[in-house]
């Protein structure tokens, strides 16, 4: 492994982890609202969040590119007000990974929240616990397995993201290149040995992620 390859692996791992952390508060809030509350437009929001799961990743990438490009609504605002550019920077990678992995977290967490018995929450409330306390001491611990499962799924999805990332972040060595992009580029350039080494790393990473989640789930069961 060369230092360039380590850089790619390290970048992919931390930007994937960061994307999972970034979507966690929003994803949990949304999952809870979908599981526990009825509100107008709920089914529309639900469908909207799941779209990146079913749409071609490249199409999702195109939407992000148009929104966050310097001529797009959000991208233009960020550029003019904060001199902040998103497209073709590591921020674009974070954005693509977050949007692509959000549905996996929301779906898993939603099911987990639905399985928590509401009576337990009510009992806590009758004993004087406020809404936030009920959420963090009763609901979240009881739904922890599903939430962590969803986080691992989201993380794994982020590790392998390709289509949306290449649209918004390009494939800039040392800056926005993730493992998937580097494998593709190396094969295109005829540098197969490079690609094989990164392939090996992605197998190890995937194995480790699944193995950890299995360990975690087994420990919870006891």
């Amino acid at each position, binding site marked *: 492994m060369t230092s360039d390859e380590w850089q790619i692996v390290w970048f992919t791992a931390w930007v994937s982890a960061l994307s999972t952390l970034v979507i966690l508060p929003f994803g949990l809030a949304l999952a809870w609202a979908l599981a526990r509350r009825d509100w107008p437009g709920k089914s529309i929001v639900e469908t909207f969040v799941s779209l990146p799961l079913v749409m071609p990743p490249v199409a999702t990438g195109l939407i992000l*590119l148009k929104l966050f*490009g*310097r*001529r797009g609504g959000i991208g233009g605002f960020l550029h003019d007000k904060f001199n902040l*550019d998103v*497209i*073709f920077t590591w921020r674009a990678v974070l954005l693509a990974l977050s949007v692509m992995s959000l549905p996996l977290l929301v779906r898993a967490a939603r099911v987990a929240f639905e399985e928590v018995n509401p009576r337990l929450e009510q009992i806590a409330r009758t004993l004087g616990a406020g809404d936030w306390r009920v959420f963090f001491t009763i609901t979240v611990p009881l739904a922890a397995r599903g939430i962590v499962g969803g986080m691992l799924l989201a993380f794994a999805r982020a590790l392998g993201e390709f289509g949306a990332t290449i649209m918004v972040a*390009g*494939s*800039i*060595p040392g800056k926005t290149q993730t493992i998937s992009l580097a494998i593709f*580029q190396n*094969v*295109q*350039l*005829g540098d197969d040995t490079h690609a094989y080494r990164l392939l090996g790393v992605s197998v190890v990473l995937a194995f480790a992620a699944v193995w950890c989640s299995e360990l975690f789930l087994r420990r919870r069961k006891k």
Partner: protein
Amino acid sequence: MRKVLACALLLFAVIGIQAAEITVFAAASLTDSLKEIAASYEKQSGDKITFNLGASSTLARQIEAGAPADIFFSADEAQMDSLAKKGLIDPATRKSRLGNTLVVVVAADSTLQINSAADLTNAAVKQIALADPKAVPAGVYAKAWLTQQQLWPAIEPKVVPTENVRAALAAVESGNVEAGVVYKTDAGISRKVKVAYEVPAKDAPDISYPMALVKESKQPDAAKNFLNYLDSKEAGDIFKKFGFVLRD
């Protein structure tokens, strides 16, 4: 029913014999000119021309892997050489047909002034889109030019490498990068960009587009006819219209 099927099969067989379908693997920068040339050739010959357009380096890799190509039209000699070395093209049919020029483009509404290669090192130019300088011809040429100007180390950190030259053009069109280096012919087809600087011939590497018959071609005769047509004055006029230089 069976008779209808038999007739249909016969019809397809006849069409199959008369009209060849020729697959041309061609550099992305040739997209518009080749499409126009193919349209007029299809009318004359009845053959059908289909294209696989992309970075010449990618196309060469695909041909190596056994992709069904009849003709390869590359944007640089290096990619053609790599296929020639592996015995994948017919050397007798190889011909350097076109020349081109490199230009620096900026978005049509940009106020950037670029009067020399050195201006690309200005802080106002944050990112520069190039076809991937590791292999894609347009990027390789651009890198050769900037290396010769002794500016490559200063410019490399700003480079956004793209899949092919048209992707570099698109990045400038979208306004997401300040500048790009593409061929003059690419700049000519887009209204959303303007040429800020044309690289003088004395500074630039020799840009040469060779074409050749792929050895594995299933219909070498029909493919050779189209190669001849590409070499004709009629096709040459279309290439010239798009800004290419004809070579002899």
